[in-house]
């Protein structure tokens, strides 16, 4: 399937502003940062988690534990897709039991990735609660899952794709909507 770029919906500044707002909302909603921990879903969620953590640390002046979660082994489509996707390392070097976890991903779509992430996280311990922060919510949920912190709501068609580019992985910060060719 070939895609062509339809529209740029967030530029570098818009992404930075959205992340700053999410950082403030997280502090407000968790009533401070006690027991707060941020965990990003590989790949781009991990970069966003690091950025949000840095923002919270700057605002509050304290260190927040941050981790990276690889959800590959918990996917619900492993029995149906040809060639298993590559497994990467999960890096959570703190005990999540009792922690107020904010899970971070770039795009919330069907909700299946988040379902996998919840299962994976619970295997690490029993957090006080888990909340979800995403840069974009594009709709079309297939599971009863919603985000607590949202950078931008973007109504999309099913034949469209939302692509988040981050400078850590892609050299620049922007969000574009792609459309199927033809």
């Amino acid at each position: 399937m070939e895609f062509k770029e339809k529209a740029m919906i967030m530029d570098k500044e818009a992404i930075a502003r959205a992340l700053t707002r999410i950082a403030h909302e997280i502090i407000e909603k968790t009533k401070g940062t006690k027991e707060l921990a941020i965990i990003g879903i590989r790949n781009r969620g991990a970069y966003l988690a690091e950025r949000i953590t840095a923002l919270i640390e700057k605002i509050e002046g304290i260190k927040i534990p941050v981790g990276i979660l690889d959800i590959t082994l918990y996917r619900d489509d492993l029995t149906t897709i040809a060639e298993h996707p590559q497994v990467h390392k999960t890096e959570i070097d703190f005990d999540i039991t009792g922690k107020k976890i904010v899970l971070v991903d770039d795009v919330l779509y069907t909700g299946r990735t988040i379902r996998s992430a919840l299962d994976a996280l619970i295997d690490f311990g029993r957090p006080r609660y888990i909340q979800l922060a995403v840069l974009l919510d594009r709709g079309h949920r297939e599971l009863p899952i919603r985000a607590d912190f949202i950078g931008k709501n973007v109504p999309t068609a099913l034949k469209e794709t939302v692509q988040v580019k981050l400078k850590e992985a892609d050299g620049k910060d922007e969000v574009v909507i792609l459309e199927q060719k033809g």
Partner: protein
Amino acid sequence: MVAWQKKDLLGLENLTAEEIELILSTAESFKEVTTREIKKVPALRGKTVVNLFYEPSTRTRVSFEVAAKRLSADVINIATETSSVKKGETLIDTGKNIQALKADILVVRHSASGACVTLARHLGISVINAGDGWHEHPTQALLDIFTLKEKLGKIKGLKVSIVGDIAHSRVARSNIWGLSKLGAQVTVCAPKMLIPPGIEKMGAGVTCNIDQALKDADAVNVLRMQFERDEGEAFPNQLEYFKQFGITTERLKSLKKNIVVMHPGPLNRGIEISSEVADGANSVILEQVTNGIAVRMAVLYLVSGATTK
């Protein structure tokens, strides 16, 4: 990174360097899983792994069993002494019956070289070679290479010596294939009668002089001497062998200070390796056992992906 497309793992001879690297990096991720409090992931839920062992093995069989269970697969162990094999069933018939039971992955150890290749050709399910005759023992070599890479940070450019019964060793063969493909320089060392003709064609240096084999070596893989194979007068006795080829503290003194000492087990203390070395700072023998689980999890995960439609 390449994608894994093979339904079987039969040996390292037919793998590319990229495929070996993929197994190693996947194993690295699985090693993290084995350090968790809950060491189990649901990746192979609903899959059945059958361990079919025609030769005695505890280490490898248990390692595969642990690996499969940590991936949430169901595991069935068949020891051939108590199975229909005793009643004369052929290898292929046994394999077809296991396939008819809807197993997904068959892990096979057999005394005949090539047994796994034959099975894989006749079966649609995945076959993993857990050691066939003198041919290959790919997961052992992969865990040796994984451990070496973890210890020394790389494989390319390393000098690795394999000492012991090279002639009867599938571990040696798989190690030579794997290490050479990744750019290491392999030397094999053994009494002359235990060096098989043509081994140098696999890309390994050959010597009967242990000091020459170990000089400049970054690692030594010590193989078990299989004295039960005693093949007449030219075969050394245990004491002679220990004096001439045994890895001892005395011998280590003149070698690289951080030389990595490996052994696939079971150990014959005081024959191919002294207790002091086996339990000493250079030894990674027990780490090899731990890493074996991560490597076998990676292999099970990858071959299982290649057969799902």
